[in-house]
C-alpha cells in the first residue's frame, strides 16, 4: 500500500502501526527551523475543570443562561455579567463580536486590598465575599496575563478521564496513545539542538509522557518524588554502587557497531552490556533489533545521565527564588476554602519547585507535572456542590499556576535579555471540561487549554461556546490554519490544541510532526 501522511491521518494510526512513522522520517529529530522556544512545561490539572468558573468565555446572555447567579458567601461561585472584568482592567465588552477577546473572568478579589478574604464583594450584590486567589493573574505589577492565551471549547472527543488526558497530551483520545505525547515530540525535535540535556522528557507525575517509537532520547524519565531522584538518577548510594562507580572513556559506538564521534564515560558493566547487546543484532528479525536498539540507546543515555551527576547540578539550582522578594508572594503560602473549612499550603499543590529547578538547570527540555489545589485536591466533582467546590479550588490551583509563570518571568533565561518564560512554552490542560453549573458538574468533552510563555500572543481568550444550544454546548468555530496551510473556520478539537502547542516551538505541521486524524493550528495565537 502506498502511504502518504494524509492517508495515515485519515486512517488514524493504530498503536501497532506507529512504527510507520519512521518511513516518513518522523522518527528522527531532524527539525531544522528557527526555534521559538527551547523548553516545555506542561501542567495537568486533574479531573476535568470548570474552566468557565475562572474565565468568562460567554456573552452576557450566555453568562445568564449557563452560569448560576452569584452565591456562596465565603465560598463564592457563580457570577453575573457585571462581575466580569478584563484582567488588564480595560473596559470589558462581553458582547463584542468575534472569537478573540481579552483575557477576562469574574473578579472575586479586592483590587484595593487583594489579600482581603472576608469583606463583602459589592459586585455580587452582597451574596459573596472577597477571595484573594486568582489575583496573580491580573496583578498589574507583573501583568502575567500578557503572556497567556486561553483556547476555549476544544472537543476532546471523549468524556472518559484517561482518554481525555491522552487527548490533551497527544491530540487523539483513546485508552492508549496513538501518537506520541506532545512532551515527547518536543523533546525529540529539540534533542539535536540540545544534546547536552540528559533528561529530555521528564515526568513528575500523571500519565507517562509516552514516546512510542520515537528515539530513546524522547522516552520519559519519571521522577515520582524529590526523594526518588538520588536513588534513581545518581550513583550516590553505596548500597547499590559501592565499587561500581568508576567510569572509563570508551569509544562511542552505535548499535550497528559503527563509530560515533563522542567517546562515552562507561562503567565496566555498562561497557560489557553494550557489547553484549550489539552482539545480538541480526540474530532475530528487524523488529526485534528495533527493540534491542532502543534498549541499547537507553543504556547509553542513562549512563550519560549518571555520569553527569544531575543530582549535584540540581542541588545548585533553586526553585522559587525571585518572586519571594515581593512580600505578598512568599514561597510557601496558604489558602482556605470558606472561612477556614479546609486549608493547605502551596507545597501540596504539586511539584512546582522541582519543576522550576529542572527548567532552570538546563538538564531538561520538557517537564510534565500534575498541579492541583491544596492537599492534592483534584477536580472530578460530580456532586450537587461540584461547581462550587470546583470554582473555589480552581482559583487556588490557578493562583499557583500564575505564581509559577511570574517566577519564570522573573528568572533570567539562558540567552541574554531573555527570561525563562520567554524560552519556555507552558501548557496547562485537564482531562476535559465540566458541564456548566446550571447543568451540574458532569464530564463535558469541550475543554480549554492555557498556553503561556515563548512567543504566545497573550491576553487572549480564543473561542467560545455555542450559546444558541442548551445544556452544555461545544465550542464555536475558530480560525485554524490547517495542515495544508489554508485557514478554515471550524470548531476546535483536541488535535488542534496539541498541534498549536507543538507549533509554538516552530515545528511545522505536516513537515516536522503530524497527528492522526488531521489537525490545525489556532490562528493568531503564536507570534
Amino acid at each position, binding site marked *: 500500500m502506498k502511504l502518504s501522511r494524509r492517508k495515515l491521518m485519515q486512517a488514524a494510526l493504530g498503536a501497532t502501526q506507529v512504527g510507520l512513522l519512521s518511513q516518513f522520517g518522523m522518527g528522527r529529530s531532524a527539525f531544522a527551523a528557527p526555534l521559538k522556544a527551547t523548553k516545555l512545561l506542561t501542567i495537568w490539572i486533574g479531573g476535568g475543570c470548570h474552566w468557565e468558573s475562572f474565565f468568562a468565555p460567554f456573552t452576557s446572555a450566555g453568562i445568564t443562561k449557563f452560569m448560576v447567579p452569584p452565591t456562596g458567601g465565603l465560598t463564592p461561585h457563580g457570577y453575573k455579567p457585571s462581575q466580569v472584568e478584563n484582567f488588564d482592567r480595560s473596559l470589558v465588552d462581553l458582547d463584542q463580536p468575534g472569537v478573540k477577546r481579552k483575557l477576562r473572568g469574574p473578579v472575586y478579589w479586592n483590587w484595593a486590598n487583594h489579600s482581603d478574604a472576608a469583606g463583602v464583594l459589592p459586585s455580587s450584590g452582597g451574596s459573596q465575599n472577597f477571595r484573594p486567589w486568582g489575583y496573580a493573574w491580573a496583578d498589574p505589577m507583573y501583568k502575567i496575563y500578557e503572556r497567556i492565551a486561553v483556547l476555549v471549547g476544544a472537543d476532546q472527543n471523549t468524556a472518559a478521564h484517561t482518554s481525555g488526558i491522552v487527548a490533551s497530551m497527544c491530540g487523539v483520545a483513546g485508552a492508549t496513545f496513538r501518537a506520541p505525547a506532545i512532551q515527547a515530540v518536543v523533546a525529540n525535535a529539540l534533542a539535536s539542538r540540545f544534546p547536552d540535556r540528559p533528561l529530555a522528557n521528564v515526568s513528575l507525575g500523571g500519565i507517562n509522557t509516552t514516546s512510542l517509537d520515537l528515539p530513546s532520547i524522547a522516552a520519559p524519565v519519571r521522577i515520582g518524588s524529590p526523594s526518588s531522584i538520588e536513588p534513581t538518577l545518581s550513583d550516590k548510594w553505596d548500597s547499590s554502587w*559501592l565499587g561500581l562507580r568508576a567510569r572509563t572513556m570508551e569509544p562511542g559506538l552505535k548499535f550497528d557497531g559503527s563509530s560515533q564521534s563522542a567517546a562515552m564515560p562507561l562503567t565496566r558493566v555498562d561497557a560489557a552490556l553494550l557489547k553484549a547487546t550489539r552482539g545480538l543484532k541480526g540474530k532475530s528479525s528487524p523488529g526485534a533489533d528495533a527493540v534491542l536498539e532502543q534498549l541499547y540507546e537507553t*543504556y547509553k543515555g542513562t549512563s550519560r545521565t549518571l555520569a553527569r551527576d544531575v543530582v549535584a547540578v540540581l542541588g545548585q539550582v533553586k526553585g522559587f527564588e525571585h518572586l519571594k522578594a515581593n512580600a505578598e508572594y512568599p514561597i510557601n503560602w496558604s489558602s482556605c476554602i470558606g472561612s477556614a473549612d479546609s486549608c493547605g499550603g502551596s507545597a501540596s499543590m504539586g511539584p512546582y519547585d522541582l519543576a522550576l529547578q529542572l527548567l532552570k538547570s538546563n538538564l531538561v527540555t520538557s517537564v510534565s507535572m500534575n498541579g492541583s489545589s491544596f492537599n492534592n485536591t483534584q477536580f472530578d466533582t460530580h456532586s450537587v456542590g461540584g461547581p462550587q467546590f470546583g470554582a473555589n479550588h480552581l482559583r487556588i490551583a490557578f493562583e499557583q499556576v500564575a505564581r509559577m509563570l511570574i517566577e519564570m518571568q522573573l528568572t533570567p533565561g539562558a540567552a541574554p535579555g531573555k527570561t525563562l518564560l520567554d524560552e519556555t512554552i507552558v501548557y496547562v490542560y485537564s482531562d476535559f471540561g465540566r458541564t456548566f453549573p446550571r447543568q451540574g458538574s458532569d464530564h463535558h468533552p469541550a475543554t480549554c487549554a492555557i498556553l503561556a510563555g515563548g512567543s504566545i500572543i497573550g491576553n487572549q481568550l480564543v473561542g467560545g461556546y455555542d450559546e444558541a444550544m442548551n445544556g452544555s454546548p461545544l465550542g464555536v468555530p475558530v480560525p485554524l490554519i490547517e495542515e495544508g496551510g489554508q485557514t478554515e473556520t471550524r470548531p476546535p478539537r483536541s488535535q488542534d490544541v496539541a498541534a498549536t502547542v507543538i507549533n509554538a516551538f516552530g515545528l511545522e505541521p505536516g513537515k516536522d510532526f503530524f497527528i492522526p486524524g488531521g489537525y490545525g493550528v489556532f490562528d493568531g495565537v503564536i507570534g
Partner: protein
Amino acid sequence: MNRALLLTVLALCGCGDPPTAALATRRQAICGTPATAATRTIYEGLKAECAGCHQSGTRGYFSSLGAFQALLVSDPRLVNPGNPDGSELMKLLEGKGTGAFKQMPIAGQTYAMRTAAAGASVAEIRAWITGLTAQARDNRPDPLARPITRMSAQQMQRALYQQLGLDHADFFIVASEFSLPMAETRGDTRYPVQSQDALPAPRQPQASGRFEGLGGGAVIGQVRADTSISPTYVLTLQQTAQAWCRLALAKPGNTALFAAGGVPASDAASVKATIERWSLHFLAQPMTPADVDALHADVFVPLLAETNQTNAYVGLCSYFIRHPLWSLY
C-alpha cells in the same frame, strides 16, 4: 489478471519467499492489494458504527485503513469481490449472517435499518463490493513488527526474588496501621519494590514508586502498567539489580547464587565457572568459552583490581540482570 500471471508477479515481488529471506533484507515487498479510494470511503463510512467494538483485538478491522484492507477486505470469508450477496459482511449488515452472529451490530436494528444518515449506505457498500477485483492478501509476518517485549514489574520482582534468593522479609517488616496490615520497609537503601496494590501494602511510597519505575501498574493509584523501555525503567532496574545482588551475596545461608553460600574465591577458574552457571541461571542459555573469557576480563578482573571480590561479583550479577536476554522475551 489470470492466475499464472498473478503467480508470476507475486514471485517477482518476492511474495513467495520464506520470511527469513525477507528478514535478512530488513524490508520485504508489499504483496497485499492496497486500499483504494473507494475502500477508504467505505472504511470511513462504516467506522462510526463498527469501530467501537472492532478497534483492537483479533477482529480489529477498524484500527486503521491498513487493518481494514488486510483483515477484512482481503479476507474472502468476509468480502467476496464482485459478489455482495455472497459476502458475509453484507449479510451481517443486512441481518442475514450465516455464522455465529446474524447481524452486526449484534443487537437492535441491523446496520441496513439504522444507517439512513451514516457515511456508507448499504447501496454504496454493495456497489463497492461489486466493483472490487480479486484482493491479494499478504499472510507473511511483518518483519518490522516487534516480536519481543520485556517482563513486567511484577514478573521482575518475582524472578529476582527467586533467582537471588531474596524474599519479602529481606525488605519489609510486619506492621499495621489502623489494624490494616502494612509493609514497613527496612530502609530505602535496600531498594524495596512493592506495588501499591500489594497486601500488605507498602507503607512508604518509595517502594511503590520503584515498582512503577519498573513499569508496574497500580489500580489503587490509577497507574497504568507500562512495559516500554524508558530511561526510568533502565535506571530503576540498574540500581535495584546492583543493590539486590549485594543483598543476596551478603544474606547468610543464601544458596541461590552460590551452592555453598557466601562469596567464593576470585581465582579465574572459580569466576569463569560462576559466569557459566549464572548464564544458565539468569539467561537460560550457555555462554561460549570466548564470551566467558571476555566477560571475566572486561568486568570481573578490572572490578577486582579496583575494589574487591564482593563488588566484582555484584558487578557480574547485575550484568546478567541487566542483560537484554534476561528482561526481553
